[in-house]
């Protein structure tokens, strides 16, 4: 694999810097006022994300439509008409959007579209991609089941062929945003007699308004309704909604998981660090600003360094993408590193602000509007969502380092 080698250079090009400014100007203009104050997300957490919340549904859709008009929801889609966006440009976009807590896209744009482009039929691409690119469609991930979490291959929700349709029975759990999305992006068992359990799995798109779907809210420990349990009772869907080939869904799922895990909220980390630094400079303890306390200084410096590390991985992955260097484990490494640091950031913030970090959002004494106590809870979702960090380590060890499997 050869490319034009020049001297090592960590700078962005002028074009890239101009792009960054363009994105920033746009989002500052288009985000609803008080968005930053009102959206309470913690970088890396999955439990308090704007795209999963009922009261922000209209605002998100509004923004997606605007982003769709700019062609920014379809950045980097192979074969898609329009401007060509490098991985680095997309990473710059993601970083800025994350900094402002804005949804850069959604599950349809970020996970569904990429998978459809790689594996979907021409007909599926024609039917679904334009609406996704326009920001008109959102998906929720219908993967996990009560008995199939980390061991997703043991999923039981079945889809039986009936003429031109599939009939789905079973249930899914932890579907974040099912209640505010249009369709399930789903994996089901279509061949119960397959020799290996990951064979005989099919990936398909199921509209939420198909009869027989019941969405039951689950309240996460942050007190937010982000995810759900969803029941499928003889839900009929056209075979046209199958992504790629029947029974091949597991392989597409691996790709889709890669897309999901690569989405690192770097800008959010930067912003939270800035808020913490400002807080320590403005907060007095025993006549001195917290920022002069040696323990606070050491802890914040450590967190700043860790966030720098997240950034290093982030830009390396973008750069590798632009050079066509594929690494099977980059997504797992990105997810592992960034979510561990999400937890470290929450713990550091809590310790630095002790005992004020405990105060909830509606208290006048709460620092950072109570974000820290929410972050302290939400960072748990970071460690276990999108594939637990234990699973990520398995993948890194087995796929990345060639260590042998258990059996």
């Amino acid at each position, binding site marked *: 694999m050869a490319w034009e*080698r*020049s*001297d*090592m*250079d*960590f*700078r*962005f*090009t002028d074009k890239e810097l101009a792009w960054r400014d363009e994105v920033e100007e746009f989002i500052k203009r288009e985000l609803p006022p008080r968005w930053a104050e009102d959206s309470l997300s913690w970088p890396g957490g999955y439990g308090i994300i704007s795209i999963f919340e009922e009261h922000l549904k209209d605002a998100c859709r509004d923004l997606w439509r605007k982003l769709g008009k700019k062609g920014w929801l379809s950045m980097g889609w192979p074969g898609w008409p329009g401007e060509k966006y490098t991985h*680095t440009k997309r990473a710059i976009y993601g970083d800025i959007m994350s900094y402002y807590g804005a949804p850069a896209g959604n599950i349809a744009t970020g996970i569904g579209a990429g998978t459809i482009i790689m594996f979907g039929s021409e007909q599926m691409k024609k039917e679904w991609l334009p609406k996704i690119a326009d920001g008109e469609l959102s998906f929720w991930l219908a993967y996990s089941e009560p008995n199939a979490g980390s061991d997703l291959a043991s999923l039981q929700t079945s889809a039986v062929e009936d003429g031109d349709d599939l009939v789905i029975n079973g249930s899914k759990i932890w579907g974040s945003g099912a209640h505010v999305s249009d369709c399930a992006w789903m994996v089901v068992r279509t061949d119960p007699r397959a020799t290996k359990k990951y064979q005989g799995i099919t990936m398909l798109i199921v509209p939420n308004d198909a009869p027989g779907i019941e969405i039951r809210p689950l309240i996460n420990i942050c007190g937010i309704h982000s995810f759900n349990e969803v029941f499928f009772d003889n839900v009929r869907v056209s075979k046209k909604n199958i992504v790629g080939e029947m029974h091949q869904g597991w392989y597409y799922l691996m790709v889709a998981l890669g897309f999901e895990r690569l989405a690192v909220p770097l800008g959010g980390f930067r912003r939270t*660090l800035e808020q913490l*630094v400002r807080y*320590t*400079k403005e907060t007095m303890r025993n006549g001195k600003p917290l*920022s*002069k306390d*040696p323990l*606070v*200084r*050491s802890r*914040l*410096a*450590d967190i*700043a*360094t*860790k966030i*720098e*590390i997240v950034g*290093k*991985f982030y*830009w*390396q992955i973008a*750069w590798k993408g632009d*050079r066509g260097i594929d690494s099977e484990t980059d997504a797992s*490494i990105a997810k*592992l*590193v960034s979510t561990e640091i999400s937890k470290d950031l929450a713990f550091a913030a809590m310790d630095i602000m002790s005992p004020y970090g405990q105060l909830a959002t509606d208290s006048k004494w709460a620092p950072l509007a109570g974000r820290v106590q929410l972050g302290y809870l939400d960072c748990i979702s970071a460690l276990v969502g999108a594939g637990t960090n*234990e699973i*990520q*380590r*398995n993948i*890194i*060890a*087995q796929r*990345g*380092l*060639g*260590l*042998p*499997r*258990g059996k």
Partner: protein
Amino acid sequence: MDLSFTEEQEILKKSAHDFLAKECPKKLVKELDESETGYSPELWKKMADLGWMGSVLPEEYGGSGGNYLDLIVLLEEMGYNILPGPFFSTMILGAIPILQAGTEAQKQAYLPVIAGGEKIFTMALTEPSGKYDAAAVTVKATPAGGGYVINGVKLFVPDAHIADYILCVARTKDGADPEDGITVFIVDGKAPGIKTTLLMTLARDKQTEVVFDNVKVGKDRILGEVDKGWAIVKDTLRKAAVAKAAELVGHSQAALEMAVSYAKERVQFGRPIGSFQAIQHYCANMLTDVDGARYITYEAAWMLAEGLDATKQAAMAKAWVGDASRRVTLLAHQIFGAVGFTMELDLHLYYRRALAGAQAFGDSDYQREIVAQAIGL
């Protein structure tokens, strides 16, 4: 962005890797560690013949006109293999400060002999306080007889016992601002009044105590200007920290590879131990630590090579890599179990050196204070 080395740097890296594997096997490493001088003159000459000492020096001084990044490439491989000897001291603590702050006469006097591998250099900075700030410089240089006389004790000085020249950081003036009044003197390593004692250290790296007892040094040996030497020292410290980080990345990579290789071979409970999750998770953690350490070090090194202000980046790199390399080498030991606890296995060499490197040129706590200042606290 271009986050890769140049073709030439890749070639340098590979050739250094192969050369060291052949010319400096662990048997030699251990012999040198136990020896007094800590280096092999034959190997030193071969390195000079390969142009390694000249890599960062301009052609007019006998070098090949490379830059700091080229040195980093070499140092990472030296860390990977372990290369006992005064290369780091000579290049980072001698050649670079002289290249940056020396008069033309000084550059002519010292740089070509460095490039040729004929002279060994080091810098005597730390004192018994063990601190790296300007106030810690108390070794005194008093004007006398047209030159200066140096008195005091330096500690943790690498390779002073074999150095032909010691860049001694001394205080020439006391004042309100400790950064004002420091002068760097290029002192003959065997000048009358210098007494060097080798310290026995964890890593068997050759750190010394150097006593300066009325050591005379001429005005022509002042590097830069009188009283204005701290700027040179700060710059050297920063470059040394990042260079040491590069070595540590090499140590960490080696430890990771040893551990993964062992985990695949060692069978217990009827299966390779690498098939157990605890071991797999250790290895995954080690890999992310090594990769992160590498990326942050390269960026800091690039900034230094470009002459950009790398205060924050260098401190972050050294803080992170110091801690990460200690984590990695420890986890590697845990994967090896008891057999890693023997002198027979080479892993402890990396564990020891990870500690030494982490504490050199400002430990992680020291670096974090620099970061704290850099982020505005």
